[in-house]
């Protein structure tokens, strides 16, 4: 067993199985397995998984592409941001 995504404990075998069961674009594969959404923000797992998918499909890494990026780049505590406008108006 080889762990590829260390935030979500996703194995190499699970990745191959998902690709072979029809999740053959990087966005759908990401949402099938939930990689790239943990505290590492995908910096560890995504480049590896893009390569695995490219190899399985016989495509280049460029053709497979990278999934959409979501801010913030590093995790931020809620308390640091909690000095904004207090939205108390009525619905």
């Amino acid at each position, binding site marked *: 067993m080889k762990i590829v995504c260390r935030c979500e404990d996703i194995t190499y075998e699970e990745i191959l199985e998902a690709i072979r069961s029809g999740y053959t674009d990087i966005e759908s594969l990401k949402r099938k397995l939930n990689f790239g959404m943990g505290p590492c923000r995908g910096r560890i797992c995504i480049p590896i998984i893009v390569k695995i998918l490219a190899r399985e499909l016989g495509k280049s890494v460029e053709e497979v592409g990278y999934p959409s990026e979501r801010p*913030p780049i590093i995790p931020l505590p809620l308390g640091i941001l909690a000095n904004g406008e207090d*939205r108390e108006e009525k619905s």
Partner: protein
Amino acid sequence: MKRRASVVVIGGGISGLSIAYNLAKLGLDDVVVVEKRYLGSGSTGKCGTGIRQQFTTKEHIMLMKESVKLWEKLSEELGRDVGYRQTGYLWLIRDEEELSVFKENVNIQNKYGVPSRIINVEEALEIVPYLNPEVFIAAAFCHKDGKASPFKTVNAYYEAGRRLGVEYYTYTEVRGMVVENGRIRKVITSRGDIETDKVVNVAGAGARKIGEMVGVNIPVENYRHHIVVTEPFQEFVKPMVIRGKLYFTQTERGGIIGGIDMPEKPDQPLRARLDFLEVFATNLVKVMPILKNVNILRQWAGYYVMTKDNHPILGEAEKLEGFYIAAGFSGHGFMMGPIVGKLIAELIMYGKPSVPIDALRLERFERGELIYERAVIG
């Protein structure tokens, strides 16, 4: 790619996938779903995960009551876990004025068989610990409301539909339709034409544009809404908690998912706003101070496809036979997906759905027969 289909479903979000699955279940073996990007790439995959019956109109309450019955058995029906959990919606009431409105809402909901009730602060704290008791005076709670995983639900519908013969064309764009003698003849896509006489426009934020291709005006506007998810931790926020325009809960994986309404103009690109993070964090930490050290992991935006009366448009267009519309869910498309799929499939197959949806037809806007829903959040 198939060159002919009984029905072409335009849009691979939950409603489109549910419609295609239900059509196949009722016996159609040549249903096609055309999706511009990947399945669930629009509002479905961006949504806040909530499933509720605490609405304020008969139309919404009846639809959602039936949808919840389907959600309760959806994992079993589709043969895959959709992450559905009936953990309730807890609506925090801020003052006496709001309390009287919620009492009225609960009366309407109870009248139509939804078991919502008003509870006091102590009871609310038993359901969700660590809420700040100073920011609400009572709450409305319905234990039959809940949440599910949008990704798991999309994949479960996709796999179940595929087993029944539905074909899915992703990264395929609809460029036009050919209409002859008042009937649809074919759908023109970026990967070829598909002959058909029935089309379902369930294109979410693209529904207005699909309508324009056949001269049917679909009066919806796309409003950008923002969402955030935090790092996971042990679950103690089980229900969806709402206070004013703030909503939040914990996902199956344990992160807080939530949002708050921000002033937006229609049709803004789906870019993240930093000021949203500040407003959300400020309001969330006020309602639940214990969360102040929790890290935010990701922020994104998706569209609420709004109609003038906040109710969806469901039915066949009077102006064009065979052109069915399921659009304008006004922020409630995910929770309605199961019932919408069933009813639109029944409408197409039998001409009559098992729950009446006549009041939700497109033509209500021309006739001025609007239904007003005031409970829209986030």
